């Protein structure tokens, strides 16, 4: 493999990274929002969100990407490929993140809320200053784990023609007729990316354990 092929691989890696990165940011926030709304136990809304989570967890990313990209135009919503890919990844990861946030919310101690109320904190200040930092520390290991799952699932976006790190190997092979090396090269880049996530997860776990939460 020559330099040009490596540059193409890196370009594919960049596509994978920025699309996954945006989906991760949106998915983590959406997950928190869903968990908070579900905590209010609003009738119908709660059931609808539970149904969404159950469906999203069972739907393969490939199917979801195809579904969104091909069927939304038929109801008048035209998406470009990038937006469809980000939307599909976000819808998928938000469901898993919502469950992670929810279990952290459920395990949050009541004493702290009472203490905050006793000194006259408003609900919002309590949430922002006391609750969120702790929720974040507790959930971070699982969230990072889910992020590496998202990157491992991201090759699904190739199915609508986005040239990500997996798809780019076909492009290189169509010129060189030697598919083995670009695939191995792409595998190596994925290993580095996900290896970094695994390390990050371990250090997040250590931090959570050190703070004894």
């Amino acid at each position, binding site marked *: 493999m020559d330099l040009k092929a490596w540059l193409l691989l890196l370009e594919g890696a960049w596509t994978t990274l920025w699309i996954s990165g945006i989906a991760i940011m949106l998915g983590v926030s959406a997950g928190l929002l869903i968990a908070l709304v579900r905590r209010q136990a609003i009738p119908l809304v709660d059931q609808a969100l539970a149904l969404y989570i159950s469906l999203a967890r069972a739907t*393969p*990313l490939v199917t979801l990407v195809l579904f969104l990209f091909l069927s939304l135009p038929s109801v008048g919503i035209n998406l470009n490929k990038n937006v469809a890919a980000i939307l599909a990844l976000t819808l998928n990861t938000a469901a898993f993140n919502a469950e992670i946030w929810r279990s952290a919310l459920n395990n949050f101690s009541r004493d702290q809320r009472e203490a905050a109320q006793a000194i006259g904190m408003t609900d919002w200040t309590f949430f922002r200053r006391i609750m969120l930092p702790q929720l974040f520390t507790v959930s971070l290991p699982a969230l990072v784990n889910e992020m590496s799952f998202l990157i491992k699932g991201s090759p699904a976006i190739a199915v609508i023609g986005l040239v990500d790190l997996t798809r780019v190997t076909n492009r290189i*092979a169509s010129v060189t007729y030697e598919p083995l090396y670009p*695939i191995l090269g792409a*595998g190596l880049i994925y290993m580095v990316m996900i290896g970094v996530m695994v390390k990050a997860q371990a250090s997040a776990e250590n931090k959570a354990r050190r703070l004894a939460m």
Partner: protein
Amino acid sequence: MNEWMTIWDARDAFFGGFLNTLKLFGISALLGLLLGALLLYLLEGPSNRARQGLGLFIDAMRTIPFLILAYLLYYGLPQGGVRLSADVAGLIALTLYHGAYFCEIFRSQRRVMPKGLIEAAQAHGFRHHLVFLRIILPNVVMTSLPLIGNQLIICLKDTAFLCIITVKEVTAAANGVQATYFIPMKAFLVAIMLYWIISLLIEYAIRWLGRLGKQRGFSHV
């Protein structure tokens, strides 16, 4: 409503794809679980070169996307003269990939398994492989049921990747139907429903096994 009629007329395509998905999932889940148990057996005992190699294989599987492995077997291997059909390549990829994950799940439970159980078995004169088969494996499997269930669902979802390497499974069937009749929304909704049904069944089966395990005293999860 006549779009649903079109779907109904194309039921053979969906049914064929669904059967293929079930077949791929069923065989690879079974072989993957066996591979996971085999890897766990091989990893028993002090570390040596071979075990480090196995550990490396598991780590490699855990840090690459499934599709890369499928690409490697389907597009990469022919360069070395090994030509597999899409179905066989997909099946091998699913088995190797998820076998490694199953082994990792088993290993995490193996680490927290009480030593006393194994020592008691050895005191009763169980041989090495019998200790593994009768004591370690049942314990490890029954205490990691929820994780196995999750992994099975991931395995089911990974079968959808195989439509990219031209395996005719249910997503490919839905895509074929939508391309022929241009009814993308309903075609993919049917596919999503089918996946949903299988994953609900998996969850149900795991819960049932959990209850069974509890009756037999594996409740220290």
